C-alpha cells in the first residue's frame, strides 16, 4: 500500500519566492495616491468655499460706547449670574514666588494671540473682571482669525492696552497677530511660566503666581455669528447663554483676582457670590 504523501507545513521562515514584477500591482498604488491627492485637495477647496470674510469692526464711537458698557457692568450682575456656565477646570494653583508688576503691585499676566478664538472669547470676561480693579485704555475691537476654528470671534485686542489700578498691574501680550504672524515678544521668564503651566498653549492668565488659567472658561461657539454690539446686548439678560458664559467667567476671574489683591476692593471681593467662588478655588 502506497504511503500517503505527508504534506509539509509551509515554513514561514523560508524566504518566499520573490514575486515577479507585476504591472497589475501598480494600479492600486496609483489609485491610492490619486485618492489621497483628491481628498486632500477637496479639503482645501471646502476650506476656501466655507471661509467667511472678517466682519467690519464697529466705528470709533460705537467702540467707545461698547467699552464703556462692558467695563461698567455692576457687581450685582456678576453676583446674580455667579459662576454661570463657566468651566473652572482650567484653574490651577501656582506655586512660584509672587509675581510683581512694573509698579511693584501683584501682577496679572495675560498671554494670548489675536488669531486665537479661545483668547478672543476669554478677553471679554477678563475685561469685565479687571474693570472692577482698575481702568482700561487702548482697547480696540478685533476678531479672531478667519481661517482658524470658530472664525471671526468678536473681541477686543490687548496689543496696545494699558491698565491703571491701585491694586494690581496688568501685563498683557498678544504674541501673534490675526494672521498668525509674530507680534509681541515674551520675556524668558514669561515663556518659562507659559511652558511650565500650559505647555505653551494660549490663552494663559497668571494671577500673581497664585493661580493660573490655561485656556478659556467657555467655548467661543457661544459668540459665533454675533457682532460686538450683539454680544454686549446679550450681557444685559442674565439668563442668556452669553451672559451665563461671559459673566460667569468674569465672576470666576474676579474671585481669582481678589486672591492677589488681599480682598480689595472690598465692595467687590466681599460680595457673597465672589467670596463663595474664592472659597471653592483649588488650595
Amino acid at each position, binding site marked *: 500500500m502506497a504511503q500517503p504523501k505527508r504534506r509539509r507545513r509551509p*515554513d514561514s521562515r523560508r*524566504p518566499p519566492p520573490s514575486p*515577479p514584477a507585476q504591472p497589475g500591482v501598480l494600479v492600486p498604488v496609483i489609485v491610492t495616491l490619486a485618492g489621497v491627492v483628491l481628498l486632500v485637495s477637496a479639503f482645501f477647496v471646502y476650506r476656501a468655499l466655507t471661509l467667511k470674510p472678517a466682519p467690519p469692526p464697529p466705528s470709533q464711537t460705537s467702540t467707545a460706547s461698547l467699552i464703556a458698557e462692558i467695563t461698567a457692568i455692576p457687581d450685582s450682575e456678576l453676583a446674580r449670574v455667579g459662576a454661570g456656565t463657566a468651566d473652572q477646570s482650567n484653574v490651577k494653583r501656582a506655586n512660584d514666588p509672587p509675581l510683581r508688576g512694573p509698579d511693584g503691585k501683584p501682577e496679572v499676566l495675560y498671554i494670548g494671540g489675536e488669531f486665537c478664538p479661545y483668547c478672543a472669547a476669554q478677553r471679554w470676561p477678563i475685561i469685565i473682571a479687571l474693570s472692577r480693579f482698575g481702568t482700561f485704555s487702548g482697547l480696540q475691537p478685533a476678531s479672531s482669525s478667519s481661517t482658524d476654528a470658530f472664525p471671526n470671534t468678536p473681541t477686543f485686542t490687548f496689543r496696545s492696552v494699558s491698565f491703571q489700578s491701585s491694586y494690581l498691574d496688568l501685563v498683557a501680550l498678544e504674541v501673534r497677530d490675526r494672521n498668525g504672524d509674530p507680534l509681541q515678544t515674551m520675556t524668558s521668564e514669561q515663556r518659562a511660566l507659559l511652558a511650565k503651566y500650559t505647555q505653551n498653549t494660549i490663552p494663559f492668565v497668571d494671577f500673581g503666581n497664585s493661580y493660573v488659567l490655561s485656556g478659556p472658561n467657555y467655548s467661543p461657539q457661544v459668540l459665533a455669528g454675533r457682532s460686538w454690539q450683539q454680544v454686549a446686548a446679550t450681557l444685559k439678560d442674565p439668563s442668556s447663554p452669553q451672559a451665563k458664559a461671559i459673566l460667569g467667567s468674569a465672576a470666576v476671574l474676579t474671585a481669582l483676582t481678589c486672591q492677589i489683591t488681599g480682598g480689595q476692593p472690598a465692595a467687590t471681593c466681599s460680595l457673597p457670590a465672589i467670596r463663595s467662588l474664592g472659597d471653592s478655588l483649588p488650595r
Partner: protein
Amino acid sequence: MTRDRVLLLTAAASGAAGLAVSGYLTAVHSASAPLVCPATATVDCERVLSSPYGVLPGSAVPTSAAGVAWFAISLVLVGLLFRHPASAPLRRLLVGWAALGLISVLYLVFIEVVVIGAICAWCTAVHVLVLAFFLVALVRWLSFEPKWQSPT
C-alpha cells in the same frame, strides 16, 4: 537582494524616519521647547500643535505620541516579517495596520486644513511617511495575492 527584501527595507526606513520625527515632536512637547518650524499664514507648526487637537482627547498626551506608538508597532511588524517573510497573516496584519495609519492621517489632515487652517510641516513629513509605509505594505500584500499575479 530580492524585491521582497527591498520592500521590507523601505518599510523599515519609513518606519524609522517616522518614529524619529514623531519622537522629536513628542520630546519638544514634553520639554515645552520651541519647535524648529517656519511660521507663515499657511504653514505654522505651533498653531497646529498648540490647538486642542495637539493632544489626544481628554488628556495631556500629545497626538505625536500616538505616532510614536504607531511607528514602533509598525517596525515590530516589519521585523517579524523579516523573520517570517512568507507569513500570510503577518502580511495582512501589516497592510491592515498601515491602512489604519493612513485613515488616521487623513483625519488629521482634515483637522489641519479645514478646522485649524494651518499645516504643520513636521506633521506633514510624518503623514507622507505613513503614506509611503502604506504603499509599500500594499505592494507587498498584492504581490503575494494570486489574483494580482500576471499569468505566466
